[in-house]
C-alpha cells in the first residue's frame, strides 16, 4: 500500500495545504509539522510559481511571499527530505507544469522519490496532456493526481479510470479561495467516479469551515483545505504555528464525524 493509499485507510481524510516557503522555508516546515500534529492525513505543498493561474488572491499572495523570500524547487526538495526524517505522512506537491518541465520530467521525478514526495497535483496538466509526464513519474513511484471539475461531465469516467493516488474533485468553478457556499452537484460527480474507479476521492476548492469539511467528507473520502490555512499564515506570519494546529485539529475532528 502506498503512503497516499494509507492516508485514506482509517476513515475520512483531512488534507491540508501550505505554499512552500511561505513566509520562509523554516516556518513552512514548522507549519507542516503542526498540521501533522493536528491530525492531517496528507500534506499538500505548493511550489510557488510566478503566475499561478488557478489560484485566487490568497494563494497568489503566498506565492509572492515565498518567492520573495527565496523559495526554489531545490530548496523545497530539501525541506521535504527534512520533513521525511520526522514523519511518514504522505506528501504531494501542487505545482504548475512549467517548473516541472523546466527542471526536467525525469530529474524532477527522481528528486521527488529521493526526497519522499508521493504525488503531484498539476492544475494546468489536463487528461489530454498527462501522458507526457505520468509514465515517467510512475517509474519513480510518484503519482500524477487527476483533477475532476464541475464542468467535466462526460470526461469524468475516463479521467477517473486513469487516476493514480487519489482523485481531486474541484468543488466549484473559478480559482481557489474561501467560499460561503458550494453549489455543484457533487453527489452526481462522485457517483460517476465510484463507477469508474476504486481510487479515493477528496473534494477541494472553497472549503474553510468545519461544517463544510464534514459535509464534503460525507460526500467523498476526504476534504482538502488550502486558502483557509494560507490565510492563517497571512494573518499571523511567523507566529501562525499554534493557530494552524488548532485549525487543522478542528477540521480533522469535523471530518471524522462525517
Amino acid at each position, binding site marked *: 500500500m502506498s503512503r497516499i493509499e494509507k492516508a485514506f485507510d482509517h476513515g475520512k481524510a483531512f488534507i491540508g495545504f501550505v505554499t512552500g516557503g511561505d513566509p520562509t522555508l523554516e516556518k513552512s516546515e514548522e507549519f507542516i509539522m503542526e498540521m501533522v500534529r493536528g491530525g492531517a492525513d496528507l500534506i499538500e505543498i505548493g511550489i510557488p510559481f510566478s503566475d499561478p*493561474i488557478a489560484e485566487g488572491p490568497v494563494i497568489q499572495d503566498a506565492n509572492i511571499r515565498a518567492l520573495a523570500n527565496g523559495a526554489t524547487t531545490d530548496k523545497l526538495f530539501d525541506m521535504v527530505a527534512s520533513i521525511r526524517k520526522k514523519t511518514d505522512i504522505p506528501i504531494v506537491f501542487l505545482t504548475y507544469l512549467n517548473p516541472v*518541465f523546466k527542471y526536467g520530467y525525469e530529474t524532477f521525478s527522481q528528486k521527488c522519490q529521493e526526497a519522499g514526495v508521493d504525488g503531484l497535483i498539476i492544475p494546468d496538466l*489536463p487528461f489530454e*496532456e498527462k501522458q507526457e509526464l505520468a509514465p515517467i513519474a510512475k517509474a519513480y513511484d510518484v503519482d500524477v493526481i487527476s483533477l475532476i*471539475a464541475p*464542468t467535466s461531465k462526460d*470526461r469524468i469516467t475516463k479521467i477517473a479510470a486513469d487516476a493514480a493516488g487519489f482523485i481531486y474533485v474541484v468543488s466549484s*468553478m*473559478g480559482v481557489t479561495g474561501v467560499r460561503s457556499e458550494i453549489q455543484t452537484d457533487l453527489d452526481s460527480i462522485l457517483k460517476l467516479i465510484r463507477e469508474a474507479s476504486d481510487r479515493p476521492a477528496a473534494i477541494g476548492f472553497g472549503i474553510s469551515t468545519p461544517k463544510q469539511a464534514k459535509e464534503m467528507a460525507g460526500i467523498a473520502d476526504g476534504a482538502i483545505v488550502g486558502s483557509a490555512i494560507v490565510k492563517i499564515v497571512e494573518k499571523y506570519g511567523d507566529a501562525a504555528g499554534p493557530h494552524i494546529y488548532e485549525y487543522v485539529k478542528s477540521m480533522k475532528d469535523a471530518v471524522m464525524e462525517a
Partner: protein
Amino acid sequence: MSKGRFGVHGGQYIPETLMNEIIRLEEAYEFYKNDKDFNDELNTLLKEYAGRPSLLYYAEQMTKDLGGAKIYLKREDLNHTGSHKINNVLGQCLLAKRMGKTRVIAETGAGQHGVATATAAALLNMECEIFMGKEDTDRQALNVYRMELLGAKVHAVTSGTMTLKDAVNETMREWTSRVSDTHYVLGSVMGPHPFPTIVRDFQSVISREAREQILKLEGKLPAAVMACVGGGSNAMGMFYHFIPDKEVRLIGCEAAGRGIHTDQHAATIAKGTLGIFHGMKSYFCQDEYGQIAPVYSISAGLDYPGIGPEHANLHDTKRAEYVPVTDEEAVAAFEYLAKTEGIICAIESAHAVAQALKVAKEYTPEDSIIICLSGRGDKDVAAIARYRGVEIYE
C-alpha cells in the same frame, strides 16, 4: 502527442474546468469555418465595417531615401479601430454568438485588442469585460476611456508585473469562473489549442490580400515580409500565405527593450527557452526554475514573455527569422516614418519598420519588401514624447 501541435509546440495545458469549453470551441470552429452563412456575414463585416481590403501602399519617399528594395506598407493601421486586431475579433465574436454566448472577455496590452473587442461587442450587442495590466492602463489611459465609451468594463490588473501576461492570467481566471455564457476572445496566436489556429486563420486575411496585391503591382513575390512579434498575431497573419513561397524571407521583429544584453527586454526567441505556460508549449523568457521572467518593452503590445507556438515552430524549422529591435531603434523608426511618409504608426509596428531600415539596402530596386503596419500610433504619441523628455498630458 495531443492536438493543436506545431512541431513540439502548442497543446492544451489548461485547467480541467476549461477543457470541455475548449473542446466545444474547437468543434464550433471546425463547423463554422466552412459554413457559408458564417463566412458571408464575416466577410461583409470585414468589408463594410472594418474597411477591408487594407491598402498595400508603396512608400516611395522611404524607398528613395533608403536606396534599396522597394518598400510597401500593408496598412492594417487604416482598419476600423486602428489595428489588425479587428480581423480576429469580428471572427471570434461572430463565432461566440453562434455558440450562444452573450458575454465576451479579453486581455489587452496596448489596448488595441481591448478596443477592438469592445467595438465588436458593441456592434453585436454582447456584454464585454476587458482585463488590462495596471501599468498599461496608466500608459494607455486614452484606450481605457475608449473601451469604456464603447460600453466595456475595464479591470485594471494589479497582480504580478501588472502588464500583458498578468492580464492574460486574470482573463483565464475569470473564464474559469464563468464559461457557460462567456467566450474568451484571445487576442493573439497563443494560448491553448484551438486559439493559435483560430486567430491565425482570422488574421491570415492580411497575407491573402498582400500576396495578391504585390503580385498585381510588382508581378512577382516580395523578397521579404516583416512584422513585429509579441504573441505574434499580426506577424502570423502577414506570414501565413507566404509560408509555401520559400523564396520569401519571413522576418519577425521582437522587442529588445533596453537591449538583449540587459534584463529589460521581451525578446523571447533571442533569449527565451522552451517552456509550458498560458496553455501552450513554446518559448518563454524564464529563469532556471521555470519562473516566468518579468519582461520590458516601450511597447505595451510587445511586452509579453512568450510567443505563439506556430512562430516557435517557424523558428525551429528555420522558415522564419526573428530579430531583436530595441526601444531606441523603434522610436527612431516611429519618427522616421512620420517625417518621411506622413504616417504615425503604432510603436509596436515601428519595430518592423526599424528592421526594414536596417535591411533595405541589402536589396536592389528589383526587389520589394512588405512591412506589416499593424496599427496606428495615436495611442503612442504621449509615450514617445515622454521618451524624448517632453511632458504631454492627455
